[in-house]
């Protein structure tokens, strides 16, 4: 960050980038989706490279499932086993959490959300990430809460490339 300006653009509140009136489910972040403490041990700080250590075995997605996800023809419970959600937080650090975690504070869906990483605070960007074969990492900007920042997407992808030098970063924006 230089002179208070970030290469990632502006921080956003959860759902803050929506250009339309927010429907009720987006008008506030539920408490169960702001609890970072509950998942703190499982949030991976990608500052120093490396992959998340939870679950202990890295979830590697195969091409067939990745294609089904692109076409939106997936069983959500299967997708969640391979999907990691990420944010670039207010300190410009990538933090990653496995989406397969069960959130006991979300009574309806039992899901973790990007705001479980940020504790409901502002962040620069958010999205999804899949580890593929041959050291490939697929990333997109798929986050209702912190996504949809098209003009800075190239900067985000480059940042992932800088952090994950041993990996090939594939931009799958939009899936």
């Amino acid at each position: 960050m230089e002179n208070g300006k970030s290469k990632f653009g502006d921080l956003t509140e959860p759902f803050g980038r929506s250009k339309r009136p927010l429907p009720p489910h987006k008008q506030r972040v539920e408490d169960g989706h702001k609890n970072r403490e509950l998942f703190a041990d499982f949030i991976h700080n990608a500052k120093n490279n490396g992959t998340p250590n939870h679950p202990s075995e890295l979830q590697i997605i195969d091409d067939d499932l990745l294609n089904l996800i692109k076409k939106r023809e997936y069983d959500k419970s299967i997708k969640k086993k391979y999907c990691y959600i990420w944010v670039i937080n207010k300190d410009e650090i990538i933090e990653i959490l496995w989406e397969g975690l069960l959130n006991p504070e979300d009574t309806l869906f039992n899901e973790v959300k990007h705001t479980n990483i940020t504790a409901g605070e502002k962040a620069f960007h958010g999205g999804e990430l899949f580890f593929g074969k041959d050291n490939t990492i697929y990333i997109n900007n798929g986050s209702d809460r912190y996504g949809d920042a098209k003009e800075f997407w190239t900067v985000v992808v480059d940042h992932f490339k800088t952090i994950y030098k041993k990996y090939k970063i594939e931009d799958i924006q939009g899936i």
Partner: protein
Amino acid sequence: MGNKNIQICIIDDSLPFQKLNGKIDDTKLINAKIIEPLIEQTVKWPNEPYLRDLTALILNSKYYKSGNIILNWALHPSFSITAIKQENYFPDLVIFDWEFLNFRSINRNKEDEAFKVADELKEMLDLLPDSFFFVYSNVASQIPIYLFKKELDKYAKRFQVLPKGNHKLILSSENLIYDYILLYLDDHPFIRIGDQEIRFDKSRYLENYKDILHLEFILGQESLKNELANKKEISEKTVREMLQNFDFKLYLSKDYHILISEDTEFFKDNFGPLTEISYAEAFEKYGLYALSGVLNDNTFKL
């Protein structure tokens, strides 16, 4: 009232059984008849007002009085496991606390204790493959997550974690459990949402105790409260009416059979052409889960 029965087992060591003057064997299942005096207003349940409220809701219901609800209590999971194995006791619903302070071994630390409780819960889930479990606890938010993932993930659809006395949702944890019981027994019960009694008409798209939470998610808590205060009923007709008052739209990709939350450039390019569809139409055609599913995930495969 239907002819269906439900066997319920509450496993919690907070029952003030000492006030029963030694009438029970506290290592065995305790029949609800014996604990009826404990729900009288004069009897205090130290630190457990919500558990008392839940017990009173169940024991004061017409379904309990008519014999449709059969309730037993165990002070520790091991006592119910013994009853399952030795007495062919198969409850349909288990309400399972997470902390058993009166039975904690001085030799076990907090983490070992959590593993032990998780093992007992897992054993019960295996012994009772057709039963549903509410993990109903004062420490719900402190239950170690890894126990869920490593041990309990495959049972995820058969249990629900609820904090005792949680009032953040439109209905309390106690009401949620009570409504589960009523919907198990009856197709048209009067369920409890806060202080209100609301008639629930089961149908192809409305059937589950969580449907109230899906409606809360879609409409927002205040809006649903107002609608229920006026309509006093949850049925396909009233839900359609509630949704008709909504200006927000969804989008349908007929080619890809996908419901989409927003007509963004990406969705237009990849799944177009998109047809606008109202919340009410989406509910009518695809049901409540499609509607809340698309709002939660932005797309829903039809």
